């Protein structure tokens, strides 16, 4: 370092001039609670069971694929046979959101696109019970979420881009927006 540079602190002046220039630049800070960043489609947030607009009920068929693929084992399903129609009825569908690691495997394997991780992240609770979603609560999560969305809503995991159609189950191949 030469004498002139040492005396006049040139490198520090350069650094300070950069910060001075940034003082007048457009700020990148987002004032969070007041203003929010738009989320990308397919953000893996709060869980919901999709309410089918035709039937008004959930789409789950009780195939247990999501419960099996879940690495955190946070999905609990119980099914029973309807004594009259002999059809399989989902009695319990519960997700422990505190155990979930948000990998999105459940929505990817679901053959009928019944479960979805919604683009909603501001949920917290005072107790563990509040974050233990049963079937009613999961459907309610969907209702709360879908009113904030542009229709038709389509989650990227319902029909993953770039995956050949023959590798997808029929329900995913014919997936449509809601």
């Amino acid at each position, binding site marked *: *370092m030469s004498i002139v540079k040492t005396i006049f602190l040139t*490198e*520090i002046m*350069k*650094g300070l001039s*950069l*910060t001075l220039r940034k003082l007048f630049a457009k700020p*990148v800070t987002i004032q969070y609670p007041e203003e929010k960043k738009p*989320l*990308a489609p*397919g*953000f*893996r947030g709060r869980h919901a069971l999709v309410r089918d607009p035709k039937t008004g009920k959930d789409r789950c068929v009780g195939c247990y*694929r999501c419960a*099996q*693929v*879940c*690495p955190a084992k946070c999905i609990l399903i119980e099914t029973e046979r309807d004594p009259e129609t002999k059809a399989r009825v989902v009695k319990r569908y519960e997700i422990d959101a505190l155990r979930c*690691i*948000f*990998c*999105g*495997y459940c929505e*990817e*394997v679901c053959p009928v696109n019944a479960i979805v*991780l919604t683009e909603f992240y501001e949920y917290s609770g005072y107790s563990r019970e509040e974050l233990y979603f049963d079937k009613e609560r999961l459907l309610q999560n969907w209702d709360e979420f879908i009113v904030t969305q542009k229709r038709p809503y389509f989650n*990227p*995991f319902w029909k*993953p*881009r*770039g*995956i*050949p159609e023959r*590798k997808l189950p029929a329900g995913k191949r014919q997936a449509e927006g809601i």
Partner: protein
Amino acid sequence: MPQAVEIIQKQKNSDQWDEPYLVNMGPQHPATHGVLRLFLELDGETIVRCDPRIGYLHRGVEKLSENLTYSQAMVLTDRLDYIASAANNVGYCLAVEKLMGLEVPRRAQIIRVIVCEMARIASHLLWLATHALDIGAMTVFLYCFRDREWLLDIFEEICGARLTVSYPRIGGVRLDFNQKIIDELYRFTEEFPRRIPEYETLIDVNRIWLKRTKGVGVISGEEAVNLGLTGPSLRGSGVRYDLRRTRPYLIYDELDFEVAVEYEGDVYSRYRVRMKEMREANKIIRQCLDKLAECEGEPVIAEEAPDLLIPFSKPKRPQPAPHPKKGFLVKSVEVPIVPEGEVYFAIEAPKGELGYYIVSDGSGHPWRVRIRAPSFVHISALPALSEGQMVADIIAVIGSVDIVLGECDR
């Protein structure tokens, strides 16, 4: 080593301080980048001995993976080096694919290179930010986080998560890129080379920075090899060892990039290596984006790739008796899902050589997973790097080897 309490008691009672002075640094110390505990033996202000204690973040990832299927165990690798989770995922998937003998489609390979290099830039940016903050430059911290935020936004667009991406899957990737992501990445690669000089203006020739980093934590190339250092920490000592060049995987052998090497072996040269690597990573992303346009519309998952829902144990298939005359006995035979055997595969993660050693017994879950984490090896080199230094320099040394305790303790 005698108990710290005993020594402190002794020091209190005696008039003379003949015992070395003991300082416990961490585990809750902001400059240890996590929960690293250092037991320092001081002579005045010089470090005589440095004894790292680890294990505060042990979650048993290796043991947990033995009870999960191959695709389920992949999400655990996110939590190793949580700053560059995409690189961990890719390394794990490549190891399993080598075991299964899967050929990944070209488009998926290019995408994997892109996310690996994005993870490298994100990791190096966070490293620069925190390292500069430790040494005393706060502005760099804010500028680095501004740019890292941009990368995390792109990750969010790609796969829906910002930090624990879980983006690749065995045999390919989970989702293809869309045009929006490609445009955003083009804008990033256009803009990012202009951002690096900003950090360099602030610290590269700054006299405080130079005094804190030059000649601190010096390690020769030979010693670095003996200690098992890899990645930028090794290349800062003048050893040209980069797995992307010495043992190319994915499409790295087709790409044009330079291996960044510096020769002094001190904190400053490790910093220079990482700055060069960010520029090279940016170049790699740019080349890959051009290559991505050539294979538009191709699938991103191999034809023989296993389903996401792999059965945990070997399924039993009925097999007819070998000799039909001996009756109609039907034997059930276990069919292996993943071939039996063992495999080691290492990639050049941002921190260094990240290797996965997997032993398979033919079922859907690994029999044993061993992770060669670069941070673990780098922490074991801390005593050699810091002994004889001043106590304030240990912060610069810890920062310069770039450790993440999630990966070290696993």
